[in-house]
């Protein structure tokens, strides 16, 4: 690298995309709507996972769940920041000052932590979904979404590893651990369907993978994990959740109340 001589010093083997620096890239209305959907998924899950810090069954899991939450919060910040460029709002305004019906997260992400097995089952489903989603979105014609997805998928790969390993461990552990992970999968499975439903946004916006196109790859991965764990695929009916249009379960309100109270009580507070 010729840092000594060149008038402008750039790492030579890769070209920077100037548009994707923190200034300058502005989302379209559809890109913003899409970024809010998947950004809110990560934001709500990050908020929920934070509860486990100091409460997990072992210290390593305090760290693991805390780190996963931190990654997800980073993805949410990138996506909300990007959405905000279209909406004229900052990521904090979007996170703290929207009301429940303005959130676009799917119901799976607002399902309660429950016991550790429940958190793992939910994490298996969310990470399998996000892994396929970001893998495809990294090829998007939208440079903003593609850049965020290419970064996020590397981190979600570790989240999925974590959930898969624990699913196998709990399923292959004691009768108690096996029955808990079985029950947790039955409880969370109904919320998968919502993730794969196309709607009017996808009719006009082709820079993101169609949700319906994610169903096969996600279900294939989940079935592979269930087979390895010698667990049956839950036979459940589908939830009628419609978070993408702001219709949420009763779980979201309290999550938002806790997440937003400080910013709303003390606007512009900083530390």
């Amino acid at each position, binding site marked *: 690298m010729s840092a000594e001589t060149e008038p402008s010093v750039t790492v030579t083997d*890769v070209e920077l995309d100037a548009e994707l620096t*923190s200034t300058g890239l502005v989302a379209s209305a559809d890109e913003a709507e899409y970024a809010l959907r998947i950004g809110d998924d990560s934001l709500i899950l990050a908020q929920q996972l934070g509860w486990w810090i100091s409460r997990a069954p072992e210290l390593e899991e305090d*760290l693991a769940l805390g*780190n996963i939450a931190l990654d997800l919060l980073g993805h949410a910040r990138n996506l909300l920041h990007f959405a905000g460029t279209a909406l004229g709002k900052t990521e904090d305004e979007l996170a703290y000052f929207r009301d429940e019906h303005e959130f676009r997260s799917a119901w799976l992400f607002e399902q309660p932590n429950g016991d550790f097995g429940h958190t793992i089952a939910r994490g298996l489903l969310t990470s*399998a979904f996000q892994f396929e989603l970001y893998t495809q979105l990294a090829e998007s014609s939208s440079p903003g979404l593609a*850049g965020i997805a290419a*970064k996020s998928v*590397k981190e979600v790969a570790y989240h999925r590893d974590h959930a898969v390993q624990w699913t196998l461990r709990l399923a292959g552990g004691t009768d108690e651990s096996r029955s808990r992970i079985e029950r947790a999968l039955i409880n969370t499975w109904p919320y998968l369907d919502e993730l794969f439903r196309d709607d009017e946004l996808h009719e006009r916006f082709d820079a993101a993978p169609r949700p319906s196109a994610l169903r096969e790859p996600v279900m294939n*991965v989940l079935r592979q994990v269930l087979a390895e764990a010698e667990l049956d695929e839950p036979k459940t009916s589908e939830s009628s959740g419609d978070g993408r249009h702001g219709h949420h379960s009763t779980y979201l309100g309290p999550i938002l109340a806790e997440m937003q109270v400080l910013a709303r009580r003390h606007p512009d507070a900083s530390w």
Partner: protein
Amino acid sequence: MTTVLTPASAWRIAAEVVDPEIPVLTIEDLGVLRDVRMQDESVVVTLTPTYSGCPAMDQMGDDVILALTAEGFADVRVDFSLTPTWTTEWMSESGRQKLEQYGIAPPGPKPASGPIPVQLGVKCPRCGSLRTRSVSQFGSTSCKAHYECLACLEPFDHFKFH
């Protein structure tokens, strides 16, 4: 001595800023420092984040501004760019060596993909044994996994592939 205010000298100054969480590594070793350019009278430094949620990024940006202004650059801006996506493959060879001497096993090659995880051999930075096991893929910071050595029985951190 006065610093000559050129992009090359700005790069050299910025390149000495260290990762606050792993102070043996500079942001140049990490591959986080991507670009330094002059824009009229300002210096624009582009950094790329390691992990999306890494809380050290803001401090690295602030430290770059402090280091450059201390050397006489009056107007410094730091941009963060997500593309091209940072990878541990950008870590310099000297960075890897410093990391290992510091007691952290440096990042390896890209692990095999697939939903059922496979364990990779990571060399113990203390005794050099390959008989190690992953305790958790998540350690004290976003970028590190927690390992233990089955030969010398010591725990250690591994800077994991990204």
